[in-house]
């Protein structure tokens, strides 16, 4: 390949290879929905500013308060006339506990019990584009972000209420205090409930710099542990995307081709069309849509449809051949970090090590299959979706119906898991195309098989690591060459949703950004993360990236590039420690700064896991640590081999994520990331043969089950630092911790995930 810097093409095609009642999510109130729908239908500008006011003083806020008794203080906080707080959450609840987190932060600053807060998921609106220019949930950013914004919003509302009370009593605001949803004036023994103050408060300016509590005054942050969403999730009343019901709704199945991107060339559906309830059956760009009054009718009719398919975009892709091509990469990639003189230092090293670490494609496989409900009205649309990015849904639906993104209203429902999959909105495109065709609101529900075979996978990856130890046994040089399909390049349409400006100009900007990433002149947004930003102090360090090109879409998958790079770097550091004849924990400890979070976590982990203590015969112990999403996590796995099966018995986990707003939820995220990560580390892979994904359901893509779930002991380090990520950082260390434990137990180094397959291929030795 003449210019391998542009990447590996895997061969093949020339482009490269490679019921009835309305059921809505809790918190969406119909009057507001009606307002949005009306604004859209009339073609009027859709703006929360109209209703809730931005800027410090707003006649609309006054008018709104006079009409409704509500103090719409800002985009997050509305104080209701009964004193309850309506809190807008502009993040998706995908299980990570963000609704409880937001409620805790708001309750802390407002001085109300948490059960005075009613959260609702914010509908799409430009003001809610608070991360990466998007209204989006990802990158473990929600609490990090809300710790500033939501506390600020709640504190501003509190100060307005206090000022209103103080004015009515003609006392200085500084003499007043708040508690239990009331403003008190101790000296005169007077108090007023928040609900009694909304109208007066609406006349006041919104303070720009309200006082926000320092950590020592917290009464809820770090203490509130009960999730606010559990009741609805144990009594069957929680409304997920799949449960949404609106009037006149019809239901759709999409039959997708065997190869990603295949189109239906012939459709035989005469018998299916005659079935009860069937409305339409038609081929479209994504496959064949079967639409019926009820979903069960669409399912039954779909079984009667015969389809011939075109070759498909991903035809010719073979993941095993691609893997071998990736291993054989010899040309240099694009350098994303270059400290010192890594090449020279490697050549001069006393001991040299080289190893390749591999990871397969992975599906997210959330328990709730992708689904979406869309009502199209000309070039406007209203969408109910279990999605991580309303901004992306807006863009995708707008493209499908030939409209503008700001004329698409997205209501975010609860999601049955997300893990990064719901940042992509291919399901929304399909639902919108079908709704436009049948001219009725449509709920599209993918089968599990579609969910698993329709792409947006964690990319297959190979990382070539080289390391050198000096005469003193210290790590003098490290190089990492990351080879994987670029998630950035798969995200062109998503990027299109973020770039501001007029449509035509946006297209040009996105095209040139994509061309820049395609040339690989700058590396990639995700491909070398976790290595290029390693906290290890290595004097000579070079990190490179070579992209792989296939037509199979890839996407963010819990912890993204860290998911495979964490495995590579922490396995290799372990190999280097053994080569240096040093204890793996001590070896890491001297590679990180003395006063660092890394060292703090390692020291706590040594104590928690009783590192160095004798283990029962037949048990191995392995360690890994990783920094991702600004959070440091260390894990020790204790592993046995039982009849050739890798059994992870216990995992110790120490996390430094700054202030843990809800400690039980942080622990749950660590437990969850460890179990999600173990499923991938041990057993899961997506393989492709002749363009056809081989795994179609949970039997061939097995998540860990209860009998294999290890005991997990989590310790959260005390911190007064700003909160950092929690949803993803527990994942990157686990695969390496297990592989390192297997090495400790058996002397065999497994360098390819899934580890159980690698173990079996070696004949269990």
């Amino acid at each position, binding site marked *: 390949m003449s210019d391998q810097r542009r990447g590996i093409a895997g061969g093949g095609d020339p482009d490269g290879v490679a019921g009835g009642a309305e059921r809505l999510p809790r918190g969406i109130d119909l009057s507001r929905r009606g307002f949005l729908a009306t604004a859209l239908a009339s073609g009027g500008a859709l703006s929360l500013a109209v209703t809730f006011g931005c800027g410090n003083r707003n006649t609309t806020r006054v008018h709104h308060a006079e009409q409704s008794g509500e103090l719409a203080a800002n985009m997050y906080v509305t104080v209701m006339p009964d004193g309850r707080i309506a809190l807008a959450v502009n993040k998706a609840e995908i299980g990570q506990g963000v609704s409880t987190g937001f409620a805790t932060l708001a309750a802390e600053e407002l001085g109300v019990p948490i059960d005075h807060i009613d959260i609702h998921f914010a509908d799409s609106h430009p003001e809610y584009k608070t991360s990466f220019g998007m209204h989006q949930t990802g990158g473990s950013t929600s609490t990090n972000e809300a710790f500033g914004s939501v506390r600020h919003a709640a504190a501003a509302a509190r100060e307005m209420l206090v000022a209103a009370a103080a004015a009515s009593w003609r006392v200085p605001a500084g003499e007043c205090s708040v508690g239990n949803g009331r403003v008190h004036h101790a000296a005169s023994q007077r108090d007023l409930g928040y609900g009694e103050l909304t109208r007066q408060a609406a006349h006041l300016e919104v303070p720009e710099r309200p006082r926000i509590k320092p950590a020592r005054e917290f009464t809820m942050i770090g203490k509130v542990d009960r999730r606010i969403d559990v009741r609805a*999730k144990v009594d069957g009343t929680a409304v997920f995307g799949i449960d949404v019901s609106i009037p006149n709704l019809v239901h759709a199945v999409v039959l997708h081709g065997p190869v990603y991107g295949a189109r239906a060339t012939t459709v035989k559906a005469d018998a299916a069309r005659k079935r009860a309830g069937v409305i339409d059956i038609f081929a479209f760009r994504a496959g064949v849509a079967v639409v019926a009054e009820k979903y069960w009718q669409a399912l039954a009719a779909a079984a009667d449809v015969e389809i011939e398919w075109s070759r498909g975009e991903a035809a010719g892709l073979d993941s095993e051949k691609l893997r071998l091509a990736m291993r054989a990469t010899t040309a240099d990639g694009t350098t994303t970090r270059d400290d010192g003189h890594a090449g020279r230092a490697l050549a001069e090293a006393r001991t040299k090590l080289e190893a390749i670490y591999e990871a397969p494609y992975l599906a997210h496989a959330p328990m709730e299959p992708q689904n979406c409900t869309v009502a199209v009205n000309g070039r406007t649309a209203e969408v109910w979706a279990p999605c991580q990015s309303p901004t992306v849904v807006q863009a995708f639906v707008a493209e499908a119906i030939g409209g503008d993104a700001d004329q698409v209203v997205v209501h975010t429902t609860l999601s049955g898991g997300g893990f990064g999959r719901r940042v992509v909105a291919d399901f929304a495109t399909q639902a919108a195309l079908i709704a436009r065709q049948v001219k009725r609101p449509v709920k599209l529900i993918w089968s599990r098989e579609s969910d698993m075979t329709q792409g947006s996978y964690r990319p297959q990856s190979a990382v070539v690591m080289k390391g050198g130890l000096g005469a003193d046994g210290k790590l003098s040089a490290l190089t990492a060459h990351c080879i994987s399909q670029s998630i950035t390049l798969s995200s062109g349409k998503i990027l299109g949703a973020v770039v501001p400006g007029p449509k035509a100009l946006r297209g040009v900007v996105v095209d040139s950004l994509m061309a820049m990433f395609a040339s690989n002149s700058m590396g990639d947004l995700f491909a070398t993360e976790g290595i290029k930003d390693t906290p290890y102090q290595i004097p000579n360090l070079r990190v490179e990236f070579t992209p792989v090109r296939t037509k199979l879409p890839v996407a963010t998958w819990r912890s993204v590039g860290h998911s495979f790079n964490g495995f590579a770097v922490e396995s290799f550091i372990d190999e280097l420690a053994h080569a240096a004849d040093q204890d793996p924990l001590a070896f890491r400890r001297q590679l990180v700064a003395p006063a660092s979070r890394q060292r703090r976590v390692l020291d706590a982990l040594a104590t928690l896991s009783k590192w160095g203590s004798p283990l029962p015969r037949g048990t191995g112990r392995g360690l890994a640590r990783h920094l991702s999403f600004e959070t440091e996590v260390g894990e020790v796995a204790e592993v046995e081999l039982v009849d050739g099966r890798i059994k992870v018995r216990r995992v110790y986990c120490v996390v430094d994520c700054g202030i843990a707003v809800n400690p039980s939820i942080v622990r749950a995220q660590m437990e969850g990331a460890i*179990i999600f990560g173990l499923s991938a580390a041990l057993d899961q892979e997506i393989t492709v043969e002749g363009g056809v994904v081989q795994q179609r359901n*949970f039997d061939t893509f097995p998540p860990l089950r209860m009998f294999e779930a290890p005991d997990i002991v989590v310790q959260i380090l005390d911190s007064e630092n700003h909160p950092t990520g929690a949803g993803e950082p527990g994942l990157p260390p686990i695969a390496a911790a297990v592989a390192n434990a297997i090495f400790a137990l058996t002397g065999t180094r497994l360098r390819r995930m899934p580890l159980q397959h690698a173990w079996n291929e070696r004949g269990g030795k």
Partner: protein
Amino acid sequence: MKLVVNGKSLEVEVPAETPLLWVLREEVGLTGTKFGCGRALCGACTVHVDGVPRRSCVTAVGDVAGKPITTIEGLAAAPALHPVQAAWIEENVPQCGYCQSGQIMTAVALLRARPAPTDTEIDDAMSANLCRCGTYPRIRLAIHRAARSLRGDPV
């Protein structure tokens, strides 16, 4: 066809081969029972028929006509909760929550058969119910808690 769901008799007009899951969700209007895999591989659709856990996604409605069917909505008369549901709240079990109806239905049946289950008995009963969020350790705790509560022991 006559169905008996959560103690109520009702008539549905659907072909006998229609999966019970979709009859419950679309004809009866009970959406607490979830679709996860369509092939009895994940347990999200678990309901009780004659008190025994069944995968409603592969159960033809005709096979259960007239038999007592219990869904998550029928475990207790709202606002009351079944002790298993209460234990789920105490232990903060759910994350996304999507699989939990099925988990709870399986756990209720387990505790009926085994009032004081061991960890191994819990694993045996629960391992066909998948959870992608990884709530298994807390499910285990919640089942032990519910068992104590059902037996009248201090929780």
